């Protein structure tokens, strides 16, 4: 089980890092989203993996998952949305100001696009 999640985190991180290293804003935003998935899963995994024991108090429960990382990750997911939104707006603003969506503002690289 642990190996599966480690593999998932590894591939999300790897793909995310590759995407944020790209030269255009849209893949960078995609990469950030992937990275935030990976980070959230890693944070979640620090509470260890528990199957079938949600942290809802009841008389019949045999045990509980660690609720603290879950609470942390819950807000992290929402904040990650805020961040993604902010970054994509920055990308739009940069395109409006620079006339290109290249992260370094290289205009000559811009070609083959619809608008």
């Amino acid at each position, binding site marked *: *089980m*642990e*190996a*599966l*999640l*480690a*593999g*998932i985190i*590894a*591939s*999300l*991180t*790897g*793909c995310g890092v*590759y995407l*944020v*290293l*790209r030269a*255009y804003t*849209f*893949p960078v935003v995609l990469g950030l989203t*992937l990275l935030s*998935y*990976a980070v959230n*899963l*890693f944070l*979640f*995994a620090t*509470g*260890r993996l*528990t*199957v079938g024991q*949600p*942290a*809802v*108090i*009841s008389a019949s429960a045999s045990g509980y998952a660690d*609720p*603290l990382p879950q*609470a942390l*990750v*819950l*807000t992290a*997911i*929402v*904040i990650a*949305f805020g*961040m993604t*939104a*902010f970054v*994509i*707006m*920055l990308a*739009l603003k940069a395109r*409006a100001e620079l006339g290109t969506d290249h992260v*370094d503002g290289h205009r000559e690289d*811009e070609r*083959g*696009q*619809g608008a």
Partner: protein
Amino acid sequence: MSLPLVVLIPLLGAPLVAWVSRFGRLHATWMAGVLGVLALGALIPLKPAVFHAETVVQQIPWMPALGLNLAFRLDGLGMLFAILILVIGLLVILYARYYLGEMDCTGRFYAYLLLFMGSMLGIVLAENILLLLMFWEMTSLSSFLLISYWQHRSDARNGARMALSITGLGGLAMLGGFLLLGEMAGSYELSDILRQGDAIRAHPLYTPMLVLVLLGAFTKSAQFPFHFWLPQAMAAPTPVSAYLHSATLVKAGVFLLARLFPVLSGTDQWSHLVMGVGLATLVIGAYFALFKHDLKGLLAYSTISHLGLITLLFGIGTPLAAVAGVFHIINHATFKASLFMAAGIIDHECGTRDMRLINGLARYMPYTATLAIVAALSMAGVPLFNGFLSKEMFFHEALNFSKYTAWDWVLTVSAALAGVLAVAYSLRFIHDVFFNGEPVNLPRTPHEPARWMRVPVEVLVAICLLVGIAPAYTVAPFLYVAVEGTLQTNPPSYSLAIWHGFNPAVVMSAVALAGGALVYFGRRPLFARAARWHGLLDAAAVYKWLLQRALALAGALTRLLDTGSLQRLLAVLIVAALAAGAAGIIPPHLPITGPVPIGVPDLASVLVAVALVLVAFAAALIHQRRLTSLVVLGALGLLVSLVYVKFSAPDLALTQLSVEVVTIVLLLLAMYFLPRRTPVETDPGRRLRHFLIALGAGGGAGILSWAVMTRPHASISKYFLDNSVAEAGGANVVNVILVDFRGFDTLGEITVLALAGLGIFALLKDLRLPAHREDIAGRPFDWDLHPPIMATLVRLLLPLALLVAVFIFLRGHNLPGGGFIAGLVTAVALVTQYLANGVDWTHARMPRNLHPAIGLGLLVALVTGATSMLLGYPFLTSAFTHVHWPFADFELASAIAFDLGVYLVVVGATLLILVHLGLMHGASHLPDAVRPGAASQPVPGADRAPVSASMPKAAAQPASPASTNPILEPTD
């Protein structure tokens, strides 16, 4: 508890003085003077205890958990310094009143001066060495402000910067030394450290600690080779020089030597380092002092030389040498302060400080001349003046020490040479300035200064004389307790008499006086030679060279890493993080796999994991086709939420699911303004490098998570699980943590979300971008924006979706759900209306302006927290346990109110972001608003091929050029 007040009065009074100065220059002077007297008044009541050989320790708790308190101690040494600092400080305040010109801002001056005074008092009265260090750095900063007081002058700015960088570097070294010292002694309190001298001297880390601490002391006290900042600091106003370079700033270093004398002295390392540096400084300072033409330059180098003398005395290390050192600290402070003030008067009256121009002033200002001559004779070490007494003791100690060691002739000869040079430069000061013919082309005709400008000089010169003539009746008791404080035992027997009979020390004094006179009157060939040697031994040039090299290196390094490309910079950053992380994996290391047994996966989990990995790779591989990669991203988010479902985190799964929807809508809306495809990057080498970096990052993250998950787990969550129902009245522990146990964190997080929303609102304001007119295959978008079937269906769905949101919200405290999830569900439900029915239709039916929702949400959350404070409990204490409201269901009363705040912020911020991005679509088409009648009623027909089938709603909406126009004005 008056001891902390001695330090705090000047520190806290500094801003007060700055404020008072707006009512007039005199007000600031009086205020500063009153504060100085008050601090002195706080010190006086403690005097009897010190004279009974007690050490007074008083403290105010500051960070008791760290063992850090505002602890102050007062013993003889501290008291001597405190009195010097306060008395000379008061004299400087009076003097500066007449020195500063009409254009100088007195409030700023006195505020800096008091700040400095308080920091200096903090150094000499601190009980904790970390506190001492803090005040030490504060003196560096406040002296920077004082030296650069005339900010318009570049020499003042440069001098201040040099002083700050040298003393700041020394302070950094001292921090290291103090940390070592504190760890060796097991305590950072001076009372403990001073008792453990033997253990510390025997410690294997003694030598590095000593070197670091001495670096701090030497830089501060301008010891060779760090002496060069002091002459540069002469660009300060003269009252500042008189204060900083006589009794205070530069004395901090020798104070430290005296303070730690019982702990650090008595080893070979100590005597070699301290004596060697002191000796070099003594001779070099005296040599340069003789050849300076600038009056203050002469005094500056003389100060360096005298500081070297004091350092040398502490380096000798015998108790008697320490007596001489402490005594010379007092004497030097008095005569040097008066000499600086006299130099300031001369500068003030003549308009220059060049001794080649200033001659024969005795005729123009006989009274000031007399005062200055007395002080200069004291500096030369002439009998009947206080400088003589300590210098005689110094000669005595130098000769005594020479009897036993290999240093013998070096020490004796150097001491005699320094004595000769000191007499020579003192004579030069007297003869060149006050006699030696007539002034040469002075900018103005000199005359006696204002009456009260002379008073501080008179007081100091009187002290020089009184101490010099009758030491036993004046300085003796202070010196005795100061030496007691320095040595931390009873002082050795010593005599303060002027005449001890004929002995070698007297011979040395006589040699110095005669030799000095000879050197001065035969000075012309010496001056010519000195001019030729000019530039040798120029430490300031070395400093400048080093500084330039350091800056050049920093520049080269920056240019190497930062070529102006963010893409490259990010790669550098990730590689650096990888390198730091790899340090934990490179052998020898802990085993990667921990001892905890791992769970056996079931088939469904394997399938989901494989799907997730494949989809992640797909997203990276096809990222050039942006729309498709977005679809893949959506699938990825859904798979991630399945992971949360599997591992007992229903709240996370719900949150991830709803966030995924809004994220995809957001990215789709944004994509409308971006190119549809990402151009292929032409450099295959770079792609390969990035692939390798990504491989490393992924592998590292995988290994790290594996290592974490296979290790034992101790969580603080047991407390939350045990107390969730009992204290917060909620069974869903995740939600209880969010709204109760860690409610303050949540408040911070919704504030961040609100700010992100507002920031985006600001970014989108007036943003205009060209938008697509046709799809990727070149077909124009469908005009049928809001197909009636979809619009009707979505309208029907709205109440159902809202009901679900209410349900999730209400049950959140006890079952999976809560404000975050309910807020996201509501946002999705409302955004769907915008997409299916158009902005204007939706705006006609609900408020347009979402800012109040965000504000109200934050307010509700804050008020909920503050209510518990009003009732006398900590912020955000759950009302379930503490507030007994008259109606029954009070466990909901507080926690759910806070959750309501969260809900409102999430709905407000999410909608704000999405709706304003949507509005931009219309705004970008303003010039093309050609189709009449399209404003409120979507026109069906125009049988175009449908847009890309995967996202009909989002892709269709932006193509409405005119339909959004009418609602633009109120929102822009």
